[in-house]
């Protein structure tokens, strides 16, 4: 730190403004980032964090304001400018080409010469080094599309480092990572800092802010609320600055004894086309009025379990009982039928599964429920048609109730920020108060205000006597919500235990059936 104190600030933002049509994404944003520090940026969904960083990286142009890099004012018009100034960015949604190898992705844009071979060779050598120095262990020849997100992200970091980034921006890097992967990431970031590099870290997880950063800037609705030294603040204060009110970081939850079994899995097995067994004869139950958490390193079968239960994928063997009756095998529309039976499903991946990005919000908000009677006209021929006003009304209700911003049912889904998209999905699935809620990574990429809100809704459901199956890689989340915990590793259930008997260490061990593989190969 002392050494870097002498240096001019790595980044100095002055009165940055950015509008997208009606939306004022950044208003007079100003703050400085000390060189050689890890600087956190927090803020609600839609606060303008990604936009701001995209401006710094030259992906968007600011409408007004100036950017100083290492003390000198710079006009950053393109990503090329940013790269030349030693700015690297790991985007919230990765900027990788799935069909290319890691090496090819890394050299893309900075190839040396017309032929690839030399560049590839050079890059390979350099990658070996970076791999070693930062313990990234990424296979240079793997197809990026086949890598788990954790590794894809390291490829992004590799790209930045390979381009000699002095300032590294990470937009919600841990949103998609398992705790193990996250720890690994922070080790990498500390090494970078030790080398005098500067890191900008956008995250919704205050724990990470407290653990990793030196200073943190809080944003709300496009503007900066303040910048504070991490050592001089705490989670509660940050949370309050972000949301503008007190936030309960842990939802109080009364003990409650569960009702009858709502969902039962008997010997559920799933074998994929290549003959790999993804689920090994799972037996479990979920009762009314209880939240069953599924803990495990991501990629150990939780996603497949959700797919099977929600009727997206057919199990190879075994049966699923709902209210004691076996659910019929898939017929193409099974997912819809199960919804109609009261099985709601919040998918892990809202981007590609839970929403249709080009649709206006009010159309995304009925996905899967589009056959609902109350969405159709009432009389005669109108019964065949949607009642558009009802559609929009329902969406407006969602948006009000879940505080979705901007509350505009006609806005294109893709234009909502990550967290707000998640709220739309959640609202849609909870709305029809289901008997059983299957929910995956409910708070991935969601701000703490929303997390509090979402957690409360889940608990309310449970208190209302509904059954909830919660899949999450966030142990805190599992521990704070679940009544019972199923631990999965390599597609097997390695243990089922009541919340009371569970703690991080114990769960960690059970998940560790495969710890070696944590993240990497998953």
């Amino acid at each position, binding site marked *: 730190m002392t050494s870097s104190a002498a240096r001019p600030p790595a980044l100095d933002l002055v009165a940055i403004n950015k509008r997208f049509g009606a939306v004022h994404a950044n208003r007079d944003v100003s703050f400085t980032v000390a060189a050689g520090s890890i600087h956190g940026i927090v803020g609600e969904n839609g606060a303008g964090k990604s936009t701001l960083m995209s401006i710094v990286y030259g992906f968007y142009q600011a409408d007004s304001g100036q950017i100083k890099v290492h003390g000198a004012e710079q006009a950053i018009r393109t990503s090329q400018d940013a790269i030349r100034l030693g700015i690297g960015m790991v985007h919230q949604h990765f900027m990788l080409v799935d069909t290319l190898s890691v090496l090819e992705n890394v050299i893309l844009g900075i190839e040396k010469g017309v032929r690839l071979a030399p560049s590839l060779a050079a890059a390979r050598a350099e990658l070996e080094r970076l791999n070693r120095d930062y313990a990234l262990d990424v296979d240079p020849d793997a197809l990026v599309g086949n890598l788990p997100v954790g590794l894809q992200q390291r490829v992004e970091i590799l790209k930045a480092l390979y381009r000699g980034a002095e300032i590294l921006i990470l937009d919600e890097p841990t949103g998609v990572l398992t705790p193990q992967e996250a720890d690994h990431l922070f080790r990498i970031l500390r090494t970078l800092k030790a080398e005098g590099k500067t890191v900008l870290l956008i995250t919704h997880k205050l724990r990470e802010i407290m653990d990793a950063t030196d200073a943190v800037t809080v944003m709300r609705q496009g503007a900066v609320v303040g910048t504070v030294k991490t050592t001089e603040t705490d989670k509660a204060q940050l949370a309050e600055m972000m949301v503008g009110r007190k936030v309960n970081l842990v939802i109080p939850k009364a003990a409650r004894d569960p009702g009858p079994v709502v969902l039962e899995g008997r010997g559920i097995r799933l074998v994929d086309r290549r003959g790999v067994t993804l689920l090994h004869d799972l037996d479990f139950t979920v009762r009314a009025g209880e939240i069953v958490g599924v803990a495990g390193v991501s990629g150990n079968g939780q996603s497949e379990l959700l797919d099977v239960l929600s009727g997206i994928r057919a199990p190879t063997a075994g049966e699923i009982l709902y209210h004691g009756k076996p659910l019929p095998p898939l017929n193409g529309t099974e997912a819809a039928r199960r919804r109609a039976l009261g099985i709601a499903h919040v998918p892990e991946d809202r981007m590609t599964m839970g929403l249709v990005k080009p649709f206006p919000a009010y159309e995304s908000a009925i996905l*899967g429920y589009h056959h609902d009677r109350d969405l159709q006209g009432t009389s005669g021929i109108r019964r065949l048609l949607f009642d558009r006003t009802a559609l929009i009304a329902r969406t407006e209700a969602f948006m009000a109730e879940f505080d979705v911003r901007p509350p505009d049912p006609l806005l294109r889904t893709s234009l909502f920020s990550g967290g707000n998209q998640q709220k739309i999905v959640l609202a849609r699935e909870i709305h029809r108060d289901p008997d059983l809620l299957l929910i995956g990574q409910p708070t991935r990429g969601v701000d703490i205000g929303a997390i509090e809100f979402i957690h409360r809704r889940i608990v309310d459901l449970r208190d209302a006597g509904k059954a909830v199956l919660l899949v999450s890689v966030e142990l805190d989340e599992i521990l704070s919500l679940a009544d019972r915990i199923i631990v999965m590793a390599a597609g097997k259930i390695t243990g089922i235990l009541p919340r009371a008997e569970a703690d991080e260490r114990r769960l960690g061990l059970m998940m560790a059936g495969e710890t070696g593989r944590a993240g990497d190969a998953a």
Partner: protein
Amino acid sequence: MSAARQSGLPRWVDLGLLPALNLAAALIVSGLVIALIGENPFEALLILVNGAVGYPEAIGYTLHYATNFIFTGLAVAVAFHAGLFNIGGEGQAYVAGLGVALVCLALPGWPWWAVLPIAMIAAIVCGAAWAFIPGYLQAARGSHVVVTTIMFNFLATAFMTWMLVDVIRAAGQQAPQSAAFPPSTHLPTVQEMGAILGISLPQMPLNLGFFLAILTAVLVYLYIWHTRWGYELRTVGTNETAAVYAGMPVPRLIVIAMVISGALAGLAAINEVMGVQHRLVMNWTGGVGYVGIAVALMGRNHPIGIALSALLFGALYQGGSDLAFEIPAITREMIIVIQGLVILFCGALENLFRAPLEAFFRPKSG
């Protein structure tokens, strides 16, 4: 794709001025071509417009051509909303003509209003059948519909040539075409309809089919944007994973989309074969299926847009033939050039003037 574009322009500019400018640009370039061959572009333009909408027959012909384009345009659009690019409208319509012909020939003495529903079913079934196979192959085997529909256009011509030459060719005539349909089966023309209402109209091919097309356009609009089934279609076309998640039967929907698409293309046969030609002629489609692609894309796959661009193409067809007729130096090929330029400027270069206009209107539009 272009559907959900937010624009910084006032509505009237976006929907009125901009297209007008594009059309103007197209006509100016066409004018240059005409001037090049030493004809007066303004006179030519006058003849073109007059020939398209200047007198009752002209309007009749324009609307008649537009009718075919509406059907084939809708066909392309429906498939497109399901993410499928159906180039097969030509072949689907061609084969549908066979169905219509067989029905009309099989029911001599029946009044048209009794024949029409059966003929429509025949057209729909034949057109749909020709689209079903590519649809099924895309859904079940992942065979790209672009390829299969191209192939099925070739197959249609082979099949129909055989039919017309060796099977249904009327005895004792050498032209590869069916016998003329019994007059009772002919669709009423607007002339006849007008006569009933006491309005006297000149002889023109415009017939009941036109109103059928309008009705169909409305139905397609409701289907795509106002029914749960249309919603499923669009979801499959935009995000298949989401469709599966929502419990939509993706393969079935793909087949359905193609079948509806084929059926719509098939209906063109009602207008053309049962309404005007009154016999099945070789290559009666004359490219309506292909024009339908341009019509659909220029109409942004929206029934209203399709109706409008169909009208434009109808006008170009009719006005163009008048132009070629009045000024012999202007050949039919030159008319095709003009049509192409209109597609280029009004379709592909639709944004040419957008940026400048946005710059111009920004102060006003805030």
